[in-house]
């Protein structure tokens, strides 16, 4: 619906190409194409006014990127079995996680030393192996007899830290404690904060795109 000559580039064409890589066909038809169609429509209505065209482009591109950002967390009404997440099919999720991990390694390597990265990767691989082994050979957790071991102490491991104000308070408090004791580690803390946010984003995206996998308490249902 754009008044353009065939030689002109169609606005939003590369967004559509990108959308084809990220979204499945039904999402492309019902969500992505209308979003791009709105961009094209507004550009047409803007006429030759540069300001209005720039505004239309800004609005349209912002809408697309907002959609791309929320897509991994949005559902057609999960948790209903059989309904699929609206974006990030498995292949795209793997690529996204790989890219994030490579970015972490690149950024983290220069900031905290290559051996830390090597140990981190080795530890992660070891954790995956242990997780697989434990899945095949489940163990019952040893519980101490409470009557004999009751002591007036604070057991940090028994405090539930979750995605709540308590968790935020714990993170801020422990970061401040480390910062007060080791002020030279401020850049390390800043980098780990950014990397932690990226990791959390990747985890939430994975759980949102696989709503029926993983431990029940880790499943995320967003409207």
């Amino acid at each position: 619906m754009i008044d353009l000559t065939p030689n002109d580039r169609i606005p939003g064409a590369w967004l559509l190409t990108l959308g084809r890589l990220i979204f499945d066909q039904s999402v492309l038809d019902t969500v992505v194409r209308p979003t791009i169609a709105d961009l094209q429509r507004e550009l047409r209505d803007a006429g030759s006014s540069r300001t209005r065209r720039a505004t239309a482009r800004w609005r349209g591109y912002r809408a697309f990127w907002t959609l791309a950002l929320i897509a991994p967390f949005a559902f057609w009404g999960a948790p209903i079995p059989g309904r699929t997440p609206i974006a990030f099919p498995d292949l795209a999720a793997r690529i996204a996680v790989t890219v994030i991990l490579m970015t972490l390694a690149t950024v983290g390597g220069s900031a905290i030393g290559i051996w830390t990265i090597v140990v981190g990767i080795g530890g992660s691989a070891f954790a995956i192996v242990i997780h697989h082994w434990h899945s095949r050979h489940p163990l019952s957790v040893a519980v101490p007899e409470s009557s004999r071991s009751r002591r007036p102490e604070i057991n940090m491991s028994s405090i539930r830290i979750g995605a709540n104000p308590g968790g935020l308070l714990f993170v801020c408090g422990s970061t401040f404690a480390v910062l007060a004791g080791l002020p030279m580690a401020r850049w390390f803390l800043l980098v780990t904060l950014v990397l932690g946010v990226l990791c959390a984003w990747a985890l939430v995206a994975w759980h949102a795109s696989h709503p029926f996998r993983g431990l029940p308490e880790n499943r995320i249902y967003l409207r």
Partner: protein
Amino acid sequence: MSENAPATLPKKERFILELLVSGGPMYGLQLVEQSDGALKRGTVYVTLGRMEAKGLVESQQEELPPGAIGLPRRIYTPTGLGQRMLRAWTVFARELAWETKS
């Protein structure tokens, strides 16, 4: 709608249904413009897609004139189920409001 899904009508979906019932079929962008900021361009089609999957609205692609370049927009209409759902929800909310005031 799925048989097991609870019959709920979230605020945004109710708002969209109200706009469509009172204003007739609309494009997504029109809904955003008429919502006074309640609906956002980046998320309105996700909500509309979800509502379509639930059977509350239906959509059709607009007819493009010959020689037109660009993507066709989608125009949204409330279904019978959507209209009944909105009526039921309005009655339900009114009953509840009356009860809580008294």
